[in-house]
């Protein structure tokens, strides 16, 4: 009888141990995105003040050490709590350029490539759902603005501007394009 009681006690101990281990495992995995200071948004927002475009140095390993070496990239952090933000990238009709919008906590919520370029640039306005409704209400139905709008589910995020050099000789031109990116408050 005592043996059975001992076995039952051991099984209960192991079950409790497993329960605590599983709970801690789940909670710690879920907490990593909330607590991490090494996530992309934290790194980008420490690079420069909000709305300031910063070119990424491929040797810094700060962002993605294994980024395509033929890609030139720049970033800017934004907080939509201060109003919508307009992001503009001058592009060449050849090659590949893009703007991608990422939110705090990870994940892209919008991307646009130069296949949608107009007047030598691609442009997108990032806004919150509330700002999107306000902006839509201001639209003139007969003369729509035609601006591309990207609605973010979180107010803080960052934009990545990329330009691909199709030939090594085009690297300087690609770098100049992303250096010419702009992040400004939308009017």
């Amino acid at each position, binding site marked *: 009888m005592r043996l059975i009681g001992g076995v039952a006690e051991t099984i209960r101990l192991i079950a409790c141990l497993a329960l605590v281990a599983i709970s801690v495992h789940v909670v710690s995995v879920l907490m990593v995105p909330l607590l991490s200071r090494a996530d992309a948004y934290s790194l980008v927002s420490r690079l420069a003040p909000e709305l300031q475009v910063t070119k990424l140095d491929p040797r810094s390993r700060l962002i993605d050490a294994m980024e395509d070496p033929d890609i030139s990239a720049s970033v800017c952090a934004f907080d939509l709590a201060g109003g919508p933000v307009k992001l503009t990238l001058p592009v060449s009709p050849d090659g590949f350029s893009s703007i991608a919008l990422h939110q705090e906590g990870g994940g892209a919520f919008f991307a646009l490539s130069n296949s949608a370029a107009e007047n030598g640039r691609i442009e997108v306005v990032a806004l919150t759902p509330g700002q999107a409704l306000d902006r839509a209400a201001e639209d003139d139905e007969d003369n729509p603005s035609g601006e591309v709008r990207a609605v973010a*589910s979180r107010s803080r995020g960052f934009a990545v501007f990329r330009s691909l050099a199709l030939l090594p000789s085009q690297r300087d031109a690609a770098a100049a394009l992303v250096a010419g990116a702009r992040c400004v408050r939308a009017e």
Partner: protein
Amino acid sequence: MLRIVSILLVLFGGAAAGLASAKYLLDRNISGDVVRAGPWEMRVSESLARADPYAQAERARSGAIALASGEGLTLTARSDQQGEPLDGRCVYAVGGATPAARFWSLSIFDADGRPVPNAASRQSFSSTELSRDPQGGYSIMVASQAQPGDWLPAPASGGFVLFLRLYDTPIGAGASLTSAQVPTISRLACA
């Protein structure tokens, strides 16, 4: 006394096991969103806001900014067509089909994720700078010693990783890829 020891064992032992298992799995990048095609693999949700919790935790630790699905996709290869790990002492030919994309590039990094230093300063080939045969086919030689044709220098020893980046591709996240759609990585010889 025994009960107190048991409670402490459950609390501290369980917490230690939970934290250790979380770190172990995150270090090994186990998020279950991998699509495999031939020697290549692709993480379909790495840039999505609704990635699985392990993918979210992994990118929060790495700080990496993956290509958004509207920009393109990244395929990674760490082994050849036969499943053998890519080795700098061997010569490989990469060629064949590539998934539909406006542009693509093939780049190489050593096993630690560092660029491979070489006199030619060559770390990648884009789809527009390759030598093509009359049928439009190509063959990129990946080896530590210089090769005729398009040569992508590999490290003299140790493993390496190949990245195939597809820019402006109609393949969306969640799409399937077959081995017939991706380049083959054939091992030709080893030192």
